[in-house]
Structure formats: structure tokens, C-alpha cells
């Protein structure tokens, strides 16, 4: 049952990711990506990560993609117009990437025929609810990383402000 739901959600994610890449209209791309991210949140729940699934919906689908949509509408960029130029290098690299990853997928499928059976978690996870256990880990073992991320976020805030400000000179 879980596997069925996972595969269905994964399929939805793949289909909408494909739509995102194929479409020429950027607004439609963003909206397809929102659907794909919601489907990915479903798969995260099935992978025992409900907190990350909530983050996916709130931060990714909720904040980041809305920011994309906002900038897109601010700049008012229309759909990409076909310009009739053939791009052999890009097409070649794109198909090469697809071939390489198809090979990778086949290799993984063959390698994981039966022996990568998932270890049923002997978790110390069971005693604490998920976000609490995660927070305990985050604020003990990974405290330094956490602080580094907060400095990074501050730097990004300042950087975005400086970049997007209307310069006095121009």
C-alpha cells in the first residue's frame, strides 16, 4: 500500500516536472513545479520524514516558489519565443545527460534487484516524536552547522537587498 502511494506520488512528481521543463510559459512552469513539490512532500512522509514534508510545503512550495512567481510577474517576462536557431551543443549535452542518467538508473535497478532491501529501522527514533528528536540532534551535534546556516541566511539577506536596490549611480 505504501509502495503504491509512493509510486503514484513519484509518478505525479515526474510528470509535472516534465511539464515544467517542456512548457515555454514560465508562469505555467512555476505552477507545475508547485504540484511536483507537493507530490514530493507526499513521498517524504512515506520516507518517515513528516517534518521535512512540512518544511517542503511551507518553505519550498509556500515561500520559494511564491518568490519566483512574484519576480516573474514583477519582470513581466512573456513565454519564450522560438527563435529558429538550432543549438546542437545544448541538444547534444541534454541528450547525453538523459542517456547517462538512464544508464545510471538501469545500473541501480540491476544492482538493487534484491540486495538493497531497506533495513527496517532499529531506530532510537521511536521514543521521541519526529520534530523533537530532530531538534535534539540539530541543537547538539549539528549546532555549529546550524549557526553557520544562520550567518549564511543573514549574508543572503544583505546580499539580496544590496543587489536589488536601485543603485544611485545608474
Amino acid at each position, binding site marked *: 500500500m*505504501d509502495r503504491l502511494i509512493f509510486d503514484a506520488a513519484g509518478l505525479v512528481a515526474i510528470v509535472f516536472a516534465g511539464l515544467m*521543463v517542456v512548457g515555454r510559459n514560465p508562469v505555467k512552469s512555476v505552477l507545475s513545479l508547485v504540484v511536483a513539490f507537493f507530490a514530493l512532500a507526499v513521498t517524504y512522509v512515506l520516507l518517515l520524514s513528516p517534518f521535512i514534508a512540512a518544511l517542503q510545503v511551507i518553505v519550498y512550495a509556500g515561500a*520559494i516558489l511564491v518568490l519566483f512567481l512574484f519576480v516573474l510577474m514583477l519582470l513581466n517576462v512573456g513565454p519564450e519565443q522560438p527563435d529558429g536557431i538550432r543549438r546542437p551543443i545544448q541538444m547534444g549535452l541534454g541528450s547525453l545527460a538523459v542517456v547517462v542518467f538512464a544508464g545510471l538508473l538501469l545500473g541501480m535497478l540491476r544492482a538493487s534487484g534484491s540486495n538493497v532491501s531497506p533495513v527496517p529501522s532499529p531506530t532510537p527514533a521511536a521514543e521521541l516524536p519526529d520534530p523533537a528528536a530532530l531538534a535534539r540532534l540539530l541543537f547538539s551535534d549539528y549546532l555549529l552547522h546550524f549557526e553557520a546556516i544562520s550567518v549564511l541566511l543573514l549574508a543572503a539577506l544583505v546580499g539580496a537587498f544590496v543587489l536589488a536596490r536601485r543603485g544611485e549611480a545608474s
Partner: protein
Amino acid sequence: MIGNVPLSDVLLVSGALFAIGIAGALLRRNAIQIFLAIELMMNAANLALLGYGAAMGTREGQILVFFVIAIAAAEASVGLAIFVALFRHTETIDVNKINLLKW
């Protein structure tokens, strides 16, 4: 429980999403669509991390994904600010028309 979701399914979905992301980043010309494809690749990596984390019964995968999401937020804000600044200069975000750094 991951007991019912084989790791190979997780890796399949993750790999497929990553391939789609690469193709999108190479084929689109609108800078924002390229950026969206990069976000998609990051999510594919997150999926693989969570899959392995769950399969091994640890929480390290979730911690890593937490950091990745935080960095993605920072990256998106700076990247979009660059696009806004670029659009002000050049009136376009078509990457083929932006060649300031070309020799």
C-alpha cells in the same frame, strides 16, 4: 514505514527527476526557468538523502535535507535579486542575449 517502499523506487524517482532537471537547465533559455530546473535537481538529491536516511534508520539524512532547504531559500533570494538587477540593466533575462562576460 520505509519497510514497504523499496529503496530502488526512491532512487528511480530521484534519478528521473534529476535527469529532467538537467535537461531543463540545458534546454531552456529563460533564466528563471533554468533556476527552476536547478531547484528540481536539488529536490531530487533531497529525495535520495531522505530515502537512504530512512533505509538506514538514522536522522542524519533529515538534518542534511533541512540544511539544503535553508540554503535553497538563501540561494533563491540572492538569485532572484540578481535577475531583477540584470533585468534592470538589459531588459531581458534570456540567457542567450546576456553576454556581458563573453570575451
